[in-house]
């Protein structure tokens, strides 16, 4: 009985741990004036949040950043 409960505890813990999210990372880009997509590479955590909130600034020009796959 004890061994079975330990096994179950292991399974339950493993189930929950497997489901915990690691830091989210996504490929991001912005749309250049000519309509092409300029890749910004993989962005994670705080950097991802900052890009999505503030956009990408290049030479005084601010571009909206998109990070979802198409």
């Amino acid at each position, binding site marked *: 009985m004890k061994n*079975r409960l330990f096994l179950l505890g292991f399974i339950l813990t493993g*189930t*929950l741990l497997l489901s915990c999210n690691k830091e*989210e990372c996504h490929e991001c880009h912005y749309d250049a004036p000519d309509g092409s997509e300029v890749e910004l590479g993989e962005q994670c955590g705080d950097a*991802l949040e900052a890009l*999505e909130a503030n956009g990408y600034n290049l030479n005084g020009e601010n571009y909206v950043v998109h990070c*979802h796959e198409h």
Partner: protein
Amino acid sequence: MKNILLMIVFPFVVQLSFTQEFKGKILDYETKEGIPFANIYIKDIQVNAISDSIGNFSIDVPLPKEINILVSASFYESILMKVNPSLFISVELIKSYLELDEVLLRPKTGTMQRDNIIRVDRLLIKDLNTIPVSNLSEALSNINGVQEASMGPGISKPVIRGMQGVRVLSVLNGMRLENQQWGADHGLGISQLGIGALEVIKGPNSLLYGVDAFGGVVYIEDEKFESQNAYSVNVNSKFESVNLGYSNSALIKLSKNKFRFNLGALHSSFSDFQMPNGKYLADSRYEDMGVKTRISYNTNNWVMNMYYMFSHSYNGIPGHTHDSIPNPESFMLDFQNRQRNIPAQNINNHMFQLNNKFFLGKNNIDLMLGYTNNSLDEYDEKFTIPGLGMSLQNILYHLRYNIIYGSWNIKTGIQGMYQINKNIAEAEEQLIPDFNQLDNGIYSIISYKTNSNFSFQFGGRYDLRNLDATDDFSSLYSSPNFSIGGKYEFGSTNKNTLLLNISSGFRAPHVSELLVNGKHHGALRYEVGNPNLKSERAFQFDLNYELNNEHVSFVLNPYFNYINNYTQIVAQDSIVENLPLFNFEQIDEAQLYGFDTKIHFHPHFAHWLHLESSYSIIYGESLNRSENIALIPQPRFNFVLSVKFKKKFKFNLEEIVVQNSHFFRQNRVTTYETTSSGYDLSNIGLKFKWYIKTPLEINFGVKNIFNTEYINHLSRLKNIGVFNPGRNFYISINYLIKGRMK
């Protein structure tokens, strides 16, 4: 007289008069031999015991002076009876070949299924193991008259007689579920973890369930506790090919003397599903995780049940587009992915509930207190900044006094909910405003069972809803409601039952119908509310005829539902911010009518064979506009063949199930709807059992075996021309360990 033939009780005075042990023996009426593995369930405290190999049982917990027990065994007619637990009882059961629908006990009222005056359809989740379901809405669609409206397996809700969303009330273990179900893209919000049974009451039932029990009620019941002084551990693992989906769950049950405990956990993950054309539907991926616990404790005059559940879901929202005329090809991918993407919903639910029952002689008092917290964030364009975000909190109570006086049963109660909805500051937009809502209702239901074959029930209720929203919107809605029902049984070899119910329903407009204004990406439309909406009122006539004999069961259930101030969301001929514009409007008079019918052939001479066919059809019409109502389900014909096999081998084939659902063409559409083609969906499943020291159950099979291309009329993706899932191979393993507690 019937009860005397069914049950002969021989009371013996217990020698040890100070003991609280409740003992007895279950016997075969004809042979007088003990019946092994009969189930003795004390419904008042939810404790059960299993009889031993010679039919003896004992339950050692504090018990009230009078208890209701349900005694059931395979191939015997079950009994619900009142007994004095200080006496030794003998119960003699009569052999029966009627189907298991008969033996089940309704959790809400404690009555036997067959004694109900209202037609209730009940489904055990374990009965769906051979052909497993993706979610509870799909499970519910196995019930005649119930279908599902979905955006893929991750987002799905039940449709009862053409009604869904805010018109269908969901109740979990007696507590109302509130999780933003108004949204077309918001699913039922509950996983299958620890769920034992589902019940559906079709049509308005405001008398017992209050405001919003308008189109029907879905009652979700957790799994029962383990039998006394026993434990069990159930581990289940499933895999399906259509979305490379896996689901793992574990449930522990412990039961020792006065204390009972269940604990479960679940994690599941599904990629984008594959359509019949081989492509994958973008953003149809989803992930669920959850934990659930339930604790029960009782004394002689009191039983307490405490529940806690946490669930987290991440649901992709398929069909997202900025094109006013979307191309279906733009939603189809050549590759499959499960990584979190946007648009998606991030949903967290906390549910806490405390149920108390106090025994006062023959009578009792029920007190339920509950708290739920739902957070729903929708990420449309950014991963870290929600487009929409809402926090919904509910505080619920229900106090009921149950009086039993001879053949009379009187239930009187008060029930209410305080709801607070707030938009989170970080969200970019608001679709509905912040609001507070207070519901209160008072009711009384009287039932009477005569000595002959007639019983009836009637009752009245008064409800009040107070709604306050930002922007100075405040409104009060109130309504009385009633229900009258009667039941008549006749015949002996062929048991005939006739049920007639006349009931009313009341639904106050939801804040999403009154004050919505903005882009609802998930629902693929721009929505505008109508603050002048009035409450809906419904009157339903429901007639149910059943025939049961040892070979055949037959049900015919016609109904007619007349509704005042029917609210609907109507497409306008405009595009706003690249989304079609929809406004909320009301129809003065509407009617929904139709019938459900079912025949089940289970011959006495071929116990291993079950054949079941069912058919449902519904018509929905606006009387003053002479047009059809939107989103009326397609008529459906279901056929199920089940063959069971005896144990012959160590790795034994136990059952084969073949299902076919034929959905008829839907031509009865409203002006802004398109018709839907008919189609067939076929599934086949096999159940094996590996008889090792602890048997292992293995199910595998194929759903949509012919890879049919279909779009259901209620599919939220119909207007963008996207198919439902294609052929789906699955395998599931169930491992159950049981033992005695020392």
